[in-house]
Structures are given as C-alpha cells and as structure tokens.
C-alpha cells in the first residue's frame, strides 16, 4: 500500500459521515460597506495603495506613453523591460522609447542580464482591488512573470474602470478558475506595493527581494463625476 492510500484510508475511516453545509461566504461580503461610486472606489484604491508606498500617476490614453518616458528619465531608468506581444506592447514600441528592452526569449538564456542590467519592468494589469489597494497581475506568454519581480522598479498600467471592491468580488465577477469563467494563468498575482520586510526588529524596509518601487499609471478618462456609476463590479472585457 502506498503512503497515499494509507493516508487517505485513515482520513476516510475518520471523516464525519455528513459534512456541514457549504460555508456562506457571500453573506459576509454583502454586509460590507462599499464605495457608492466609481470615483469613490478609485479614491479608495489610491489611498490604500499609497499606504503601501505604491506611487500613483494619473494618465490618459493619449499621454501615458509620454508620461512613462518622463518617469523613466526622472528615475534614471536606462533599460525598461516589456512584453512586446503584450496588450500595450505595440503602443510602447511605436513610441520609440530608447530605453525599451523586449522580454522575448526564455529567461534561462539571459538570467544574469535580467538580474543585473535591467532597471525597470512594465506590465499591464488585469484590474485592481479597492479595499486593500491591490493590483491584479495576470502574467502570460506575452508578459512573463519576472517582469514584475526582478527589475528594481515596476511600472503597471491600470484601467480605473477595472477596479473591484474586494478580492472576493473580483473572483466572483470574473469567475476565476470556474467552468465558463476566466481560466487561471500559470501564476496569477496580487501585488500591494513594493516588496518589503519587517524581519529585523519589526522595522519596515522596502525592496527586500523584489521591486523597491511600484509605480501605477492609472488610466482614468472619466472626469470625476460622483454618483453616476452604480456600485456594480467592473467586469468589462479585458482591454
């Protein structure tokens, strides 16, 4: 008999014959106080994210690439890694940013360069969570996982219309991993600020292993008009 069969055998012999009813998670979240407008939701996200030391820069479709160019210059970024096949890859390439470096080959062939010679990484985001000031990052073949981890600065473009109130809302609205919903990628991520640690005498230090800075380019075309948007989850198709 294998370890598997022995362990499962013991558990089966001991498992209660009737399982309790499935936990009611929805009720818990229904009782939450929620933002009542899109403006409030965006404001909440920004306040929380700023609390995690994420930097928020408001941009429009027309100016985000130039803003990014300016930020790179201001932060002394000489190499900006991006996914050329990513949703914003074409826009970036077309803008002719001199610092752009494509992440277009397996990491194994250029690990040292990635770790030692890249100043910043750029990714899209799937959305965000207002309650906790959290980005939802969905790496894939076009935008690899290490883009948001290895370079010391992480730039992330976020569409303000895709901010959910809570993680639970995001999972339910998009049906993460459920039949007919959104398939989970190899590695889905939530990111709330730059990497940090408090392991030395509870003193907070940033840039433990991952990025030391997280900059969110917040794409928000809607002029601030409170109350126009009912508090429904934002579930438009991915850009």
């Amino acid at each position: 008999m294998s370890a598997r069969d022995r362990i499962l055998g013991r558990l089966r012999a001991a498992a209660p014959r009737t399982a309790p009813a499935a936990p009611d998670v929805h009720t818990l979240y229904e009782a939450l106080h929620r933002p009542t407008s899109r403006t409030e939701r965006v404001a909440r996200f920004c306040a929380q994210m700023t609390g995690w030391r994420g930097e928020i820069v408001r941009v429009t479709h027309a100016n985000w690439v130039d803003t990014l160019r300016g930020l790179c210059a201001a932060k002394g970024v000489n190499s900006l890694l991006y996914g050329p096949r990513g949703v914003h890859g074409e826009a970036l390439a077309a803008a002719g940013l001199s610092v752009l470096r494509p992440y277009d080959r397996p990491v194994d062939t250029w690990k040292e360069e990635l770790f030692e010679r890249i100043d910043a990484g750029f990714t899209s985001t799937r959305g965000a969570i207002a309650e906790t000031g959290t980005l939802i990052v969905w790496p894939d073949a076009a935008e690899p996982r290490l883009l948001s981890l290895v370079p010391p600065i992480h730039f992330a473009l976020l569409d303000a219309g895709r901010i959910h109130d809570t993680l639970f809302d995001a999972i339910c609205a998009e049906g993460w991993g459920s039949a007919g919903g959104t398939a989970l990628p190899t590695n889905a991520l939530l990111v709330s600020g730059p990497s940090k640690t408090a392991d030395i005498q509870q003193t907070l230090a940033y840039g433990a292993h991952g990025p030391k800075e997280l900059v969110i380019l917040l794409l928000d075309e809607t002029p601030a008009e409170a109350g126009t948007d009912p508090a429904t989850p934002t579930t438009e198709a991915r850009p």
Partner: protein
Amino acid sequence: MTARHPLQFVPAEEFKARTRAATDDAHLRQSFRSAMDFLMAKRAAQFPDDSALQRQRETAEAIRRYSLARLPELLEQLERRLTANGVHVHWAENGDEANAIIIDIARRHSAKLMVKGKSMVSEETELNHAMEAAGIDALESDMGEYIVQLDGEKPSHIIMPAIHKTKQQIARLFAEKVPGVSYTESVDALIGIGRAVLREKFMQADIGLSGVNFAVAETGTLCLVENEGNGRMCTTVPRVHVAITGIEKVVEKLEHVPPLYGLLTRSATGQAITTYFNMISGPRKPDEQDGPEEVHLVLLDNNRSQAYADEQMRATLQCIRCGACMNHCPVYTRIGGHAYGTTYPGPIGEIISPHMMGLAATHALPTASSLCGACAEVCPVKIPIPDLLIRLRGEATHDAPAGRAPLLGQGAAKSRLMDAVWAGWAALYTRPALYRAFAWLATRFRALTPPVQSGWTASRTPLRPAPRSLREQLAERRRAHR
C-alpha cells in the same frame, strides 16, 4: 539556546530548564515583550468593529470545518486537478519520507543548490539537515529565516523567525559571516546586504522550495502569502519548484480563500493584505518565457491524521498558522519560541506537537499554559485551544478509554504517586467521618508540616493547615454568640 541538533525530542525536564533559562534572560524577555506588544496593537487596529470581526471568524471557522469534513475527497480532487495542470503530486507519511521525495527530485536534476521560501512544514521535516546530509545546499531566503540559518538557529516565531534578535546582534552576525561586509546597524543597509547575497543565489539555484498557505481543490491552485518577494523568486526563477504542505491546508473553492487570507494577514501582523499573493496553477507552458519547467507538491501527514480521527482534536487542523495565539500568549511572551523546542511554538505548538511527536516527548507542553483563554479569543478560525490543552493533559496522564486507539505516547505522564494522591483525595472527600478525622489531625499537628514542599516552595511560602478547620471555627463562633 542554539539548536544545532534536530529538534525531535522535548524531554519535560529539558523544557523546564529552558523555560527557566529563558525567563532569566532579561534581553530575550525584553525582545519578546516589545515585539508582542507591537504585534498585538497592530492586530487590534485592524479590527475596530468587534461584531464584524466575529462574523468574519465565524465564516472562516465554517470554511475550515467544511473543508476538513470533506478532507479525503478534497485531497483527491486537488491531486486530480494539479495532475491535469501538469503538477506532480507526492504523499508522505512522515518527515523522512517527505525529505526522501525531495532529495530524489533534487538528485534527478543533479541539483547543488536549493533556495527556500518560508516553509514551516520543511522545518517540521528537518529538510535542511537531510539536504545537507545528501550533499545539497539548502539556503533560506526569507530575510528572517536567512538570519537564523546564518546563526545556526531555528525560527523562534512562525511568522517572524528572527524576532528574538536585536538589530545589533544581526549587524554583528552579518559582519562576521557575510564576506566583505562591515558592521552596520542601519536596517535598510542590512536588508540590502541580504538582498544582494540572495539575488545571486536565486540566479544559481537549481530548485526552489516553498510552503503553501491554501491549496484550492477545484482549480488545482497553490496559494502563497508573502511580503518580500522571495517566495515568488523561489517559485519562478529555478527550473524546478517543490511545494510542501500539510494535508490539512486544502479548501474546496477559490472563493473560500479571501475570508481566510484577510483574517490571516490581519491576525498575524496587522496588515490588511501582504505585498504578494501568489496563485500557482502549474509549470511553465511551452510558449512561456519563465517559471519552473517542473512543479511538485509534497503532501505531508506526519500524524495529522491522528488529530483528524478525533472529533474534538480535529479542530487543531483548522489552523491557518497566523501566529496570533503566540503573540497573545503570556507564556510565549515570557519564554520565547526556542524554549518549546518544537517547530511550532506557543499555543498552536502545544496542541499540534503532541500529534506530530507523540506525548512521550511533548507531554509537558500542554501544561505550559495558564488557560487564560487569550489564544482562543484571537484565533481567527476559533480553535478552542484551552479545551484541547486540558484534553491533552488528560490523555498524557491516563490510558485511552476502552475501544479507542491510544494516541502516540498515550499516558506518558502517568504517575503512580499522582494517582495515589488523587485516590486518597477522593476517599477523604467522599467519607465524612474520615474527612473530619483528617481535618482534626491536620490542624492539631500542623507544626509537623514540612517546610520544603517540592516545587511549591521554590518560589512560594509553604502550605500549612490553619490552626482550626473552618467547621470548628464556625462551631466556636456559634457557641460564643449563644
């Protein structure tokens, strides 16, 4: 108090000696006192509304109880889904089996270096020792774990492994052990040193090891909670990722995760969320540029199934390892994590270690509690820790009831003397004539009470009967008033 030898045995006498040494160490007590005060205040600030907190705890408890009730089928579902996703699933009865599985994987890849994200289960199996014996370097990469490993120690807290160390101690340690580093007390500089050393290792490592905070059966997803990014490094950069977890960590659906995750981070360090929440569902796909080519999951029992078999003790497995029970424990705060001599210290360690290591080795642990109930009050999944402590005290001092299999080490703390004392007590208190005779004798001959009464008089005045029993005093008073 360094623990170079594997922590496999905790003889009661040694535990007592260590607690004495720990309480005499003013430095250590100061470290823990201030760290625990800090963590308690941060947690409290996260839960301003008690009724909301109670609703969250009830939901979290319901999720854990539901998951445990269906544990065997959820484990099978998890295995099926992970396998379909391309993850290799292994099962281990005990720590040695788990280590052997991991060493075997390492050997197949001719691995020389393994980088480790934070994993208490790998501490439980003493994986680092086993890897070392097999000639493979195992390097801890969580800053706190890196620090304690560099000093040849073990974590003293499950969330903050180096909580017992001051920054001066860490500064000295780095200056001594890290080549080319001079003494600095700047925390930013110290973290920078760790970052530089470990980045080098992430690049070189052949295998990355991680723990698992939640395993989702329906989607075949391994969830990891962390702030530093070392967990993401370990699970993304090396060619092989091995995750190890206890069999109890599984939940059915992804939507069951948010309430647990929200309570975990708030209870642990008073954070609304951690920097990273990593949901891994498989190895690198053919068109992807990074991520491990191979992902393994090791499911470890290590006698968790013994706790599972008992309806009351099954609650032990609800634990999500937030560490709040130790942060709020007056005993833990005074003796620190190392005194326990087990992987899991504090209240959760006192109720889980007897299953993992047997009561023969651990029967003193459930007695290291004043039963004040602080642990149960803060536990986010409502484990009735004091009830379980009392239960384990009983199991340690009695045989198993007829018809029930004995626990590992059942009755290990049985003492003839104590049994005789209780039998005598029962006889005395159920026979009035005998009781009166005893009271008369005890009060008349009180001068004969020994001045040294074993452990009692070590720090207290001796117990001595009153000159007259209460009954006699009352009778006298009645006579006087007549």
